[in-house]
């Protein structure tokens, strides 16, 4: 079997054994979805319309931004990366395997939310299913890229946790997934636009649900995709530079 595919398969099996991964990628987002789905749909019936999208954004942001960086930092701190390197495992492959495995988990949990939201809370269905899933795939990619960037930038696990929270909390509060972004004061509205979650929510609203929004859905999707590619490019560059730095 191809080394990359085997490594990916082993990574999936390791993830399935790792309690932290299961909690971050599945348990907490799904519990949040059930609780918050019930709350949102009862206090703000219009939130029902895009509930699947907003809850998917929450799950993906949580898994990618809180879940993806720590394993990377741990691998570097514990010497796993060095052990891999002397065993002939390419550094880029390690990063790519983290990206692909996280992508798979987040896609799975998003699919569960997409299927369960209408059944549990009477959530609205997208007008454009293809658009919905394209946006979802792009947002998952962008979020994981951001998570990996945090993972390769942070020098320690505590720093990674701080950086993750600094991205996760504003993504949650300012992106319009918990309450309409139009309710925010202008500075916070603009601050929210730093985060891909805001643009992903905008893209879902306009392109998948055909709702009115502040700016073009295509532009929002383009920003989401570009921020993902930029984060991924910087993450790969930082990862390789950090390897060179470490090795002097």
């Amino acid at each position, binding site marked *: *079997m*191809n*080394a990359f595919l*085997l*490594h990916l398969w*082993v990574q999936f*099996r*390791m993830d399935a*054994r*790792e309690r932290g991964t299961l909690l971050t990628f599945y348990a907490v987002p799904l519990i949040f979805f059930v609780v918050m789905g019930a709350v949102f749909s009862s206090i703000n019936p219009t939130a029902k319309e895009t509930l699947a999208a907003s809850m998917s954004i929450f799950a993906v942001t949580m898994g990618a931004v809180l879940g993806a960086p720590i394993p990377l930092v741990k*691998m570097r701190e*514990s*010497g*796993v990366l*060095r*052990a891999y*390197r*002397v*065993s*002939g*495992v*390419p550094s880029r492959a390690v990063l790519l395997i983290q990206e692909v495995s996280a992508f798979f988990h987040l896609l799975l949990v998003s699919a569960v939310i997409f299927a369960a939201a209408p059944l549990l809370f009477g959530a609205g269905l997208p007008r454009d299913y293809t658009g919905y899933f394209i946006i979802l795939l792009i947002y998952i990619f962008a979020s994981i890229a951001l998570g990996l960037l945090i993972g390769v930038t942070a020098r320690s696990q505590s720093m990674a946790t701080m950086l993750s929270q600094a991205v996760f909390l504003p993504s949650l509060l300012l992106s319009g997934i918990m309450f309409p972004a139009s309710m925010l004061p202008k500075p916070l509205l603009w601050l929210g636009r730093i985060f891909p979650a805001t643009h992903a929510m905008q893209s879902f609203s306009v392109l998948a649900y055909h709702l009115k929004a502040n700016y073009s859905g295509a532009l929002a999707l383009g920003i989401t995709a570009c921020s993902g590619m930029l984060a991924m490019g910087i993450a790969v560059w930082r990862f390789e530079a950090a390897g060179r730095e470490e*090795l*002097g």
Partner: protein
Amino acid sequence: MAEAAIRVQGLIKRYGPTIAVNGIDLEVRKGEIFGLLGPNGAGKTTTLECLEGIRKADRGRMTVDGCNPQSDRKELRRRLGVQLQSSSLPDTIRADEAMALVCAWHGLPPRFDLLRDFGMEASLKKQYHALSTGQKRRLHLALALANDPAVVVLDEPTAGLDVQGRAQLHDAIRALKSQGITILLATHDMAEAETLCDRLAIMIHGNIAAVGTPAQVTATGRGETRIVVRTINGSLLQGCDIGNARFTKASEGYGEWMCSDAAAAVIDLLRKVQAAGDTVADLRVERPSLEERFLELVEGGGQE
């Protein structure tokens, strides 16, 4: 003379203003176990990392099985097996998965036979975090051999192991030598170096302070040989120097002398016993140990 498996010429490595390795020359012959000893910060690990191709040397030439570790890392991965001093694997990876994965990246079928050879048959399905320290070391050693290397670098492979684990790993290292594999072993354990290594080098402050077989290294320097004798009538216990041997103490019927020329001193002692009409009941000649020689070098800052 045997061909060199590892050759280092004028290796220099600096970390900012600190010189970690100061222009050392080193040659490891094919099929031997070569020990690299030195106190913490002597430059052992830096030297090994330069040879492993994971650290860039500032100056100097190196070859590992004919391959330049600084410029030809792909080829190096085929010829060299490495067990790092501080390495780990993901907590939830199983021993058999780790082996399959490393072999796959080398483009080889899984070498589960190596895990069995290292006594890990019962632990194949165990996750890394559940392995004992000894099992982890053996797993890393097995992974280092997955590509069937000609040269293996072991950086303190027995650190933290209990006596049994250490003995098992020593047997494994000897077995590798019997297969013709060249082993470069960095260790703090003098007894390990003395019993395992064909030749060794002592590194101090980035320089090679001594190199040779354990016997050659211990024979140099001012380390004196200890001679302990017990005779039936105790004729030597009066406490006098004999020839070049300096009397140091008498205890429980034994007399002890220190000397630089053991052969001459033993002859002189035996003559003295004979002249006194006495008979030797016990005689021991103890060379200075590698540890004593090592400490002598370290205290002298690597200078003779």
